[in-house]
């Protein structure tokens, strides 16, 4: 099995992938209706950032990026916890997870 292609994957590929993931996450936030899915999309965005960090870290030969990723993951976890807690509260209160339902504050 030829694994050379792996070596040919450069920084740019990772970055583009990460950018794509970021955009997908963004699109998810913009387009999906379910609050939970929105949360997941945000996680996707954060993870794409993680990917960017790791890729840079690897190609710059620095360890910092990897450490940063741990920080980010921790924060993402905290964020997810808060987000899910919110989602649960809201669901309990309104029986609704469609984001379009929450349009009382406007104008």
């Amino acid at each position: 099995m030829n694994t050379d292609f792996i070596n040919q994957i450069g920084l740019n590929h990772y970055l583009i992938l990460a950018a794509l993931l970021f955009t997908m996450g963004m699109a998810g936030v913009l387009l999906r209706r379910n609050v939970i899915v929105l949360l997941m999309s945000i996680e996707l965005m954060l993870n794409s950032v993680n990917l960017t960090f790791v890729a840079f870290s690897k190609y710059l030969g620095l360890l910092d990026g990897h450490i940063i990723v741990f920080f980010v993951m921790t924060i993402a976890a905290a964020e997810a916890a808060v987000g899910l807690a919110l989602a649960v509260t809201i669901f309990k209160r309104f029986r609704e997870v469609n984001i379009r339902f929450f349009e009382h504050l406007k104008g």
Partner: protein
Amino acid sequence: MNHSLLMALVILSPLIGFLINGFRYKRHSANVAGVIATIAIAISFVSSAILVTDLIAMPEESRRIAVKFFEWLVIDRLKIDAGFVVDQISAVMILIITGVGTLIHMYSIGYMHHDKGAAKYFAYLNLFIFNMLLLVLGDSLLVMFVGWEGVGLCSYLLIGFWFTDSEKAAAGMKAFITNRVGDAAFLLGMFLLFVTYGTLNFSELNALAPTVAESSWLGAVTLGTLFLFIGATGKSAQIPLYVWLPDAMAGPTPVSALIHAATMVTAGVYMIVRLNPLFIMAPNTMMVIAIIGAATVVFAATIGMTQWDIKKILAYSTVSQLGYMFLACGVGAFGAAMFHLMTHAFFKALMFLGSGSVIHAMHEEQDVRKMGGLKKYLPITHITFFLGWLAIIGMPPFAGFFSKDEILAYTFNSPMGSPILWAAGVLGATLTAFYMTRLMALTFWGKSRVSKDVHPHESPALMTIPLITLGVLSVIGGWIGVPHVLGEYLGHIPNVWEHWLHPLIKGIPGWQTLDHATEFALMGTSVGLALISAGIAYHFYVKAPDAPKKIAEKIKPIYNLVYNKYFVDEVYFGAIINPLVNLSRNIWYYIDVNFIDKMTYLAGDLARGMGSVIRSSQTGNVQQYAMYIGIGVVVALSFVIMR
């Protein structure tokens, strides 16, 4: 006595009288108020007389009493003192003002006897005298202007004295505003002269007057004097600003006598005479003055022929007579103008007071069609009025003859005059004789048309004494200015008047004395024509009362035109006043309310509009908000990358 003190007495005693009566404004008694006011003026008159005596005692070349009380307004080059001068011209004026004024105040006590506002009336009258004295005594144009506006104010107050009548109040307002038009021009004239000569002081101005006549229309002297003359047309009721004077008859009759015949309306003439060295160097202005004067003479006289209101007739007559004075000024005969000013003050004040006596007797009736044959009820009034009549139609040796004739002679002969102007003057004299005779006839002669419930009676002595005094003056007033040609014939009677004024009056350039024959011929012509005209009028209104009506029928369009005063008021209203009011309404409505305000609202609306756009973008949808963020990021990135 000290001149300053005397001057202060002359000027301030009417003011004090005004203040006393002013603070008593609620009192009704005409006697007390009248006596206070009359005494105030009498003091002024006596002081004036002493001043003038002092003046006469002075050597001829330095006849001038100047008093400066304080510096009034001093800014940069502008130095105006509260300074007053008695010289040959103002001496005459103050004597007329305080003298005739005293008589009229006295007369007013009787006339206003029943009026509840008497205190106010006398206060105004005193204030008027005060302002008139400021006007004539002031040593600079600005001080004169103070009096000039002040007399306008008093005229306003007195015309609208019976203010509950809206029309009378309107007449007062009309007088003031018309005068203001003139005053605005007066101001401009002052500015122009000040900017040119750097002073407003009369003696300095006269000294600085150019020695060569100015031919340009836009030269400082010409323009300045023209503006001043426009001011004079307002105050002295000349075309085109005469319109207020007939309406001014709404005031009490003594007021008409004092203000609108004897004194205030002559202020314009006085001002021109004051500045004669300046005016004479502006031949263009002089021409305009002469033409306006002559036109006014004829114009007003024709209207006078058709009026039925006794005071209106006299008012138009005043306008016409003032025209003579301006005609005189215009041809350079300033002395003659002053002379006529004086004689006119006597006989016209007399006639107004006489008419007041008639109106008083007729219980406020002013329509001559409802009079007639009053001779027997009002003997004194009739006699004095008769003297006035003789004076105004120019019968020798009554006062009017001398002054009017001098004017006509000058008009004919002066290099600035012309036979056409003379002809206009003579025509005016003829017409004057006609309508004055008509007035006499309709009022005093012929059959009585007085309604049954009116019982005319002669006025009290308080009113008749001034009449008699003025009557005498109307007879003898002219004798101080006997023309040389007559004086020589009658035994070397000197022309005191001319001699007296001589130092202050600039000679007419290119003047040549008229030969005697021509002068007699001119005299004869005007007197003769006046006699014929008076005779016709006598025939029409006494012998054949139906004739005038028939003639009027025959020339109906012309008659109506004249009867309606050539529709001048209507034209003024239609062409100036109403359009102006409409314009104002429109600019208020369209510019202020609907444009400027709307523009500011527009700014507000713009902000609100943007606000509502932004609000509508704030839908409450989180994803939309996220979209804004996304778009913002994308736009920013793409902009940033374009480097």
